[in-house]
């Protein structure tokens, strides 16, 4: 048993597990910001007065939400990078990291949009009517009245999207980014003797990242809840 723990420890010497997890965390961080921005714009489009905007927003959400993430990432690397030859960074590996961030942001923005829309649905009609009554147009009333309340009401679904994003960073290997799932594959390849330990290491790593995020969103959704 003690030798098994020694094997376990040697895993960390042989492979840079923390570095790989750090890549996942960085991917999560940047993609979260990106998808939040894009998702908010999409949500705004979906409730906007302009019909073409609404169609565009709805079309984006319906297509992206129903496409597997792997396909989106492969299209970015194989289509946009390789065919259109758009480089996002002069550093070769950084380029793929950025493509992975963009792919993750594009995909999760559809879910952020839906989360915010569900938040908009928690805002009482009277709020919007009152905003209109005092002469606010669409953008001012959205910015000042509706969205601040909607975002607070959307914390729980947004938190769920963030958790999904964290876990989906493992798919970034499809965009040539070396992160934890790629490392796990080679760890099992080279150290099949400790396969359970490898799995537990990766799994517990994710539990350690994901559970605090879950607790944080639960806390935040209570703290910032709009009391009605």
């Amino acid at each position, binding site marked *: 048993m003690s030798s098994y723990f020694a094997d376990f420890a040697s895993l960390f010497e042989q492979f840079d597990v923390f570095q790989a997890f750090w890549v996942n965390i960085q991917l999560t961080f940047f993609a979260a910001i990106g998808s939040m921005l894009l998702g908010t714009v999409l949500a705004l489009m979906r409730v906007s007065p302009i019909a073409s905007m609404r169609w565009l927003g709805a079309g984006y959400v319906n297509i992206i939400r129903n496409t597997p993430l792997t396909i989106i990432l492969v299209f970015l690397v*194989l289509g946009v990078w390789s065919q259109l*030859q758009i480089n996002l960074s002069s550093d070769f*590996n950084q380029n793929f990291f950025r493509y992975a961030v963009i792919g993750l942001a594009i995909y999760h923005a559809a879910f952020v949009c839906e989360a915010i829309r569900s938040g908009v649905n928690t805002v009482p009609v009277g709020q919007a009517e009152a905003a209109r009554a005092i002469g606010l147009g669409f953008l001012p009333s959205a910015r000042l009245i509706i969205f601040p309340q909607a975002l607070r009401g959307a914390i729980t679904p947004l938190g769920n999207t963030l958790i999904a994003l964290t876990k989906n960073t493992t798919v970034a290997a499809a965009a040539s980014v070396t992160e934890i799932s790629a490392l796990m594959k080679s760890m099992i390849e080279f150290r099949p003797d400790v396969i359970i330990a490898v799995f537990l290491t990766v799994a517990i790593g994710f539990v350690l990242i994901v559970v605090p995020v879950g607790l944080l969103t639960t806390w935040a959704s209570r703290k910032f809840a709009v009391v009605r």
Partner: protein
Amino acid sequence: MHHKKKLYSVAAMAAAAALTLTACGGGDDGGDGGGDGDSVRIGIKYDQPGLGFSDGGEYTGFDVDVAKYVAGELGYSEDQIEWVEAPSANRENMLQNNQVDMIFATYSITDARKETVDFAGPYFVAGQDLLVRADDDSINGPEDLDGKNLCSVTGSTSAENVREEVPGVNLVEQSGYADCVTMLGSGGVDAVTTDDIILAGLASTDANQGQFRVVGNTFSEEKYGVGLPKGSDQCEDINAAIEKMIDDGAWEDALTSNTEGADYQYNTELNPPTPEACAS
């Protein structure tokens, strides 16, 4: 009570659905698993154009041609061959669990593998090489790769080899060689690396003919063998069949027809190989 009944019937339906689905799964194999002597189960790649490729009921490629010839020599006609997909990671398992009788799937003979399976052959000696665009004459070996973009498959040893030898190379890792060849065609990468014959197979598909060149400067030696279950008694017969195939020209024909249009010349110093002595 009404609700209770309903719940049970839902559960029963779910269970029934599960059973049907698994039943479907089992039925897909077609074979009954046991070797009844009437057919031979041969493991090949299904996704490697030029070596082993499945297109509906049709199987093509150099591995497939060698397999057909060997099976013929062992007394099996073509319709007695049952083709089975043998992905790289599963090959040892499939042989150990008696899922296939033999494997022709770019299967390199190594000492580590010899501990769990037997090998006949080799029937071809491949080597790690580079595929470049036909009009690009600046790359003629790994030493020219400094500062260039190279594509290989995620986690493959070929990628690691080059990275160690030429630290200045930019490595893209994709999930398949076809992705790499697409990138090469569009100029995203300057070279693709893996075994020379795999590159030749990719470059000789209808769509890629004439566009690419296999550099022909191999920097490793991969002896493709016929994977057999440990303790198999067929090794000698298979070796004899391979020798016969080489002698009567069928080997050469199979090689040229499967790599046509790839601007590829196999390593004539090492090929055609002489089969090694069998294990037992």
